[in-house]
């Protein structure tokens, strides 16, 4: 372990639950971290705040989570004067000791000695026919429209997918006056029964889930479980959704679809920071390796929250604190080892709840086998499953970066963020190797597109 530097410069990336609690922990210990966030206001996604001037109460915005949201937001407000807060700022590159930032279309550099990455997550969506049509959004998107903009998807909305967000979103939407015409769950009720012992480790969360289901049922909204495949149809926008269940196909007319199958961690900065990655079977994703406290494989780089493994908002707050405590320990500053141990224990227990959730909402394993050749896998470049399969057959491609070089999958504006996992699964199925062996897309800066004009402004500054 390196000797603690004379004056550490800690940068926390992400002002969601993990980042806020990490910042609070460091401030309490007398440090003044820099907190960088892409959004205009703190809170991350689940506790996302609307722009200033919006009037709904916390109860209206966050429902059962109102108290937690309030606690987090007010904690952050108290922190503001004691941190160097950089909202509306994108960290687009991470090199040893230095970050490249974009704020107000201008480039800036930021040095650091220690990093806490709290980069959060994105809905996990596997491609299905029609998924690129206007009117098709992630569950998270549908929620942000309501929470942060006071809008719902217009017209008849189908909510489809799996995971805890499914029923929550349907409930929030129906309550807000959206026309929810069906909720389609790819998990089976039987799976939920099997997962009962693990789910009961977090009875409050479990009860909320049951509450939403009960509420929706009472409103007469059709809830269908065991859905196998979905397909959206329409020309300019979605006009109907087909699904199969037990060999039977049903179609429902609709104007919007909100869909998602759990969450996927955003790990680009961890990769650029040089963290070692391991394929995580539970998350079906490559994740940066992290110890019980949140230390990555790189000294001085810590990981917290959903950005390095999906565990939910409560766990994110705890892991943000745990990572900050580990950082303090590594700096040789006083911090409670007993509390670190306690946090580690709680987070482990939470992981078992998560495993229960995965049983209750199993991921659809066979889509890569069953999807048609004309299914668009890469939204940005419009690369189809057939093009990927052809590369395997004709060019002997077995590795994902090679697949990218030859077919252009993952070469678009999102640089594989949305399609990477799907492309790896298609490749794995076509070659007969495991998804882990198919490899993972190499990340390069910028992690999101940056305007050339920012480069020009930077050159002028020199």
């Amino acid at each position, binding site marked *: 372990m390196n000797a603690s530097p004379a004056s550490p410069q800690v940068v926390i990336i992400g002002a969601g639950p993990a980042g806020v609690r990490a910042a609070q922990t460091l401030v309490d210990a007398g440090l003044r971290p820099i907190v960088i966030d892409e959004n205009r206001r703190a809170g991350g996604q689940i506790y996302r705040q609307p722009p200033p001037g919006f009037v709904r109460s916390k109860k209206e915005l966050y429902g059962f989570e109102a108290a937690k949201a309030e606690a987090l937001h007010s904690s952050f407000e108290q922190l503001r004067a004691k941190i160097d807060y950089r909202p509306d700022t994108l960290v687009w590159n991470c090199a040893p000791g230095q970050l490249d930032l974009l704020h107000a279309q201008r480039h800036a550099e930021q040095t650091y000695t220690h990093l806490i990455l709290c980069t959060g997550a994105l809905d996990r969506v596997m491609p299905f026919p029609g998924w690129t049509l206007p009117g098709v959004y992630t569950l998270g998107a549908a929620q942000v429209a*309501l929470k942060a903009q006071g809008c719902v998807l217009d017209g008849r909305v189908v909510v489809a997918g799996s995971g805890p967000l499914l029923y929550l979103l349907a409930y929030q939407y129906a309550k807000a006056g959206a026309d929810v015409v069906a909720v389609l769950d790819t998990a089976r009720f039987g799976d939920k029964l099997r997962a009962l012992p693990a789910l009961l480790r977090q009875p409050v969360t479990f009860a909320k889930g049951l509450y939403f289901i009960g509420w929706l049922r009472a409103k007469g909204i059709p809830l269908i479980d065991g859905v196998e495949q979905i397909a959206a149809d329409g020309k300019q926008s979605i006009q109907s959704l087909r699904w199969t269940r037990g060999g039977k196909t049903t179609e429902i007319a609709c104007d919007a679809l909100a869909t998602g199958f759990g969450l996927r961690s955003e790990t680009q900065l961890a990769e650029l920071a040089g963290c070692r990655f391991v394929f995580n079977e539970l998350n079906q994703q490559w994740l940066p390796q992290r110890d019980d406290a949140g230390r990555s494989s790189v000294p001085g780089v810590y990981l917290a929250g959903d950005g390095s493994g999906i565990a939910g908002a409560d766990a994110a707050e705890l892991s943000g604190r745990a990572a900050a405590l580990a950082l303090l320990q590594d700096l040789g500053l006083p911090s409670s080892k007993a509390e670190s141990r306690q946090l580690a224990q709680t987070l482990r227990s939470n992981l078992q709840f998560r495993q229960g959730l995965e049983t209750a909402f199993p991921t659809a394993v066979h889509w890569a086998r069953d999807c048609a050749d004309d299914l668009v896998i890469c939204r940005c470049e419009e690369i189809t499953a057939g093009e990927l399969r052809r590369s395997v057959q004709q060019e002997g491609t077995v590795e994902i970066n090679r697949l990218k070089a030859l077919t252009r999958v993952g070469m678009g504006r999102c640089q594989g963020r949305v399609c990477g996992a799907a492309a790896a699964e298609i490749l794995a199925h076509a070659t007969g190797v495991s998804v882990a062996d198919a490899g993972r897309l190499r990340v390069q800066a910028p992690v999101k597109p940056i305007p050339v004009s920012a480069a020009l402004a930077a050159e002028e500054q020199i």
Partner: protein
Amino acid sequence: MSLLRRVAEQERASVSFWLDGKALSARAGDSVLTAVLTHAEQLRRTEFTGAPRAGFCLIGCCQDCWMRSEDGVAVRACTTEIAEGMRLLSGAVPVAGENK
């Protein structure tokens, strides 16, 4: 035809903007995406097949909501706030002088 419908926060100052040459109205605090999709059904067309797109994740990750203003500036609709006088192009209507 629209993809988003307002259900709350309706008492906000009005903001005028232009979409494909047509004058429209949004509310202060709307993202460009909200401003456009409360009036329309697309934000852009893909470069390769011309398929219409209207965003997907709404949190600045999928990069599927990039629009261009009439003077060529790239705007990520879901993370950019609508501003008075913005002149946006969605690809729904061919606009004379649409530049690179």
